[in-house]
């Protein structure tokens, strides 16, 4: 029973092959085996959103799946997004707007913001709140987080337009 299983998956662009025990969650695997501790563990039952990662391009809770289920998948963590600099503007806006205090929830918040802002258009504040409904923050009261995400959404659309105009 519970024989270790060899899994291969891509994590932050690198192929990884490891033995895992089936009961090990993806979150534990990332944090302990791969030492990617930017993925945080709060409730461990899919409520707080601190452990969000990208699985095959979609945001999921890494505490709500076992590492063994992720064999063959492409996983990206907050470290990966940071290194690719695709959330640099979001991180900057969080900093500017004081959208974090203790920072525990921030990796999950950034994951949600990344996914939301990958869609076209500017989300309304209600859209942003709805997207954040699965992310708990016990410090900020959320207002500054919504502000930061809204700011980035506007800046990105503006930057897109300027690029278009420059091209035309």
């Amino acid at each position, binding site marked *: *029973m519970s*024989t270790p*299983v060899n899994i291969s998956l891509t994590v932050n662009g690198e192929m990884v092959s490891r033995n895992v025990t089936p009961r090990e969650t993806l979150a534990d695997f990332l944090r302990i085996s791969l030492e990617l501790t930017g993925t945080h563990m709060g409730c461990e039952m899919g409520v707080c*959103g601190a452990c969000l990662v990208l699985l095959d391009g979609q945001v999921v*809770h890494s*505490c709500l*799946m*076992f590492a063994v289920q992720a064999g063959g998948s492409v996983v990206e963590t907050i470290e990966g997004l940071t290194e690719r600099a695709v959330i640099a503007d979001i991180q900057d806006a969080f900093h500017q707007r004081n959208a974090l205090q203790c920072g525990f929830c921030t990796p999950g918040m950034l994951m949600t913001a990344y996914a939301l802002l990958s869609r076209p258009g500017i989300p309304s504040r209600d859209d942003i709140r709805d997207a954040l*409904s699965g992310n708990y923050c016990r410090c900020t009261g959320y207002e500054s987080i919504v502000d930061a995400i809204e700011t980035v959404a506007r800046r990105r659309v503006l930057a897109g337009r300027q690029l278009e105009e420059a091209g035309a």
Partner: protein
Amino acid sequence: MPLKARAFSYARPTTMVEALETFAASGEDASYIAGGQSLVPALALRLQAPQTLIDIAHIDELRGIELQGDWLRIGALTRHCEALSDPLIARHAPLFHEAAPHVAHPAIRNKGTLGGSIALADPASEFPAMALAMGAELEIANRNGTRRVPADDFFHDLFQTAIEPGELLVAVHVPIVRARQRWAFDELARRRGDYAIVGAGILADFNGDLVEQIRLVFFAVGNTPVRAKAAEQALLGRRLDRDTVLAAQAALVDELAPPDDEHTPASMRLHLARVLLGRLLGRLSEAA
């Protein structure tokens, strides 16, 4: 509190036959896992502790959304986010589409499956109730073959359905909506994504202004999704005028027996069920 699952072995079959055989070989001490968004917490809390976990997420026979004559076949592995985005579901099985934004939070919807939700049959969940409201049929497989069970006969009791141990839910078959049908869905929850205090869906055939057929289903008011047949009777053959709506709301008293809990007394849930029914019938009138 240990929030880690007890040790188990893992199997990843790629066909339904292989999955069913793996369950049989496990001595029936196994759980199927698809999206796992309810199962993983149950394992972490050790409400369940199977010897074997059978990962059915890689079985193609459980996938796909396609029109089959007057029915839409929705593979059990269809995820909640697809129920929201898929154009065939939006057009032909609209109550799933309308319920989807209310199912948990975005990240859960990216992983959780429609089939898993219906097979689990949480009485507070949206999809089981909407399967009942649309008169869906549930396709179930065992080692002898498959059968289709009408939703009216599927939900037996709290977390208990027509699915026997070891069987798999293969697909949800929904009769596609017809031209004279109107529908409405809503729920009351403290915050979007929370479990509903009470929710309901209606699918009705109209002849002009008159209700010809109707299926009205409530959830979070009992051990299973509940078809409110007395309220349906009060609406059949009638226009949705004020007296009819009041009669339907009054009928709920006798047929809904919602649970009492520390947050929501039964009387409040019943009151909110009446409020919700009034709103939904109002929307059906406007949809004319």
